[in-house]
């Protein structure tokens, strides 16, 4: 199992498949944008504002999922001292950070016409802002601490603590009264979204996911080469 997580495997994967993943991503994103911007119907209440959702929701999902990956990687690298997980976490962090910013930004330009405000301190929005801050602390620690071993330990702890925020974000809309609406797409029950709107949403999600994989593979290769060069010095 652990053999799979070798930097050679990831680098080989980068060299062999990056081209195909790029093509896959381009197809999905072009297809997804056409469907979500032109083909899919306007919402009965929000009208065309609903199209912001096709970027907002996948970005938010990925921001959360990527931080979950970072938290798990942080735990493994703290306990087992396997450097590869630190590298995985370090390579995905900027991707998740970008998605969390996209999520906040698109959310507030959706909120202005729909709710009547760009920002409000309800539980969902606040906990999402906390996630952004965790991303900033994580990436910042890598920049501030130049010693790899120290930075590795600190960032792992940061990602582990930040993990506690994820269920708060997810369930904030159920635990508290929030202005933000509850989840539309649920794993256990049927979703309260029409299928003509669900399709572009899922296509956009997989487009964003494959984009994350592209950036991850490139960044991982860079980071592991960096580590090798610094070790030789």
């Amino acid at each position, binding site marked *: 199992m652990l053999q799979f997580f070798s930097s050679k495997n990831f680098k080989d994967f980068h060299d062999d498949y990056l081209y195909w993943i790029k093509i896959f991503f381009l197809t999905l994103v072009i297809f997804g944008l056409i469907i979500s911007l032109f083909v899919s119907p*306007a919402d009965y209440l929000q009208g065309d504002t609903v199209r912001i959702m096709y970027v907002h929701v996948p970005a938010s999902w990925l921001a959360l999922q990527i931080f979950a990956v970072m938290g798990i990687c942080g735990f493994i690298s703290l306990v*087992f001292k396997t450097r590869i997980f630190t590298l995985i976490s370090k390579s995905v962090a900027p991707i998740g950070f970008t998605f969390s910013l996209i999520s906040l930004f698109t959310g507030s330009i959706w909120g202005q*016409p729909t*709710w009547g405000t760009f920002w409000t301190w309800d539980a969902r929005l606040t906990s999402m802002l906390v996630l952004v801050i965790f991303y900033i602390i994580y990436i910042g620690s890598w920049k501030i601490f130049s010693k790899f071993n120290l930075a590795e330990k600190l960032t792992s702890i940061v990602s582990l603590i930040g993990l*506690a925020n994820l269920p708060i974000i997810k369930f904030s809309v159920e635990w508290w*009264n929030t*202005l933000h609406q509850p989840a*539309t797409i649920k794993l256990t029950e049927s979703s309260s*979204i029409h299928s003509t709107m669900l399709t572009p949403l899922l296509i956009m999600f997989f487009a964003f996911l494959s984009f994350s994989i592209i950036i991850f593979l490139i960044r991982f290769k860079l980071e592991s080469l960096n580590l090798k060069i610094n070790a030789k010095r």
Partner: protein
Amino acid sequence: MNSNVKKRLYFLLVSIITIIIIGKFIFDSLKINSVYFFSPTDLKNTTEIPNGIIRIGGMVKDKSLKKEGNKYSFIVTDFKNEILVNFIGIKPNLFEEGQGAVVEGKLNTRTNLVATKILAKHDENYMPKEVADALKKTGNWKKNYGK
């Protein structure tokens, strides 16, 4: 597993469990204190009228919205209790009768609020206009959708 790995694993697991337990206590007290908005029923059950700025959320009662220039008055209900709201200003587009809303302002009396800000609350249902019309026509509107 060598002994060092085991030591670190136990240390981390114990500290995580401790933090979760502490976190739960903090969380429970936060849950009571950090209310984004009250429902009209919450407000009825409080012993004293809050005198600062508060938020109240609920449905805008059907046929209760009255407009006079930029002065609005309407009733916010949670289907058990109601609060009359007065508001001067511009309302958001999605603010309509039968839709959810959060109003911010000061309580005049226990059942009357002078709002300084209106926020429209959107629910988790997304559907094309044709589907919504069809549902309304067949009488299934807001039966399968919404709470």
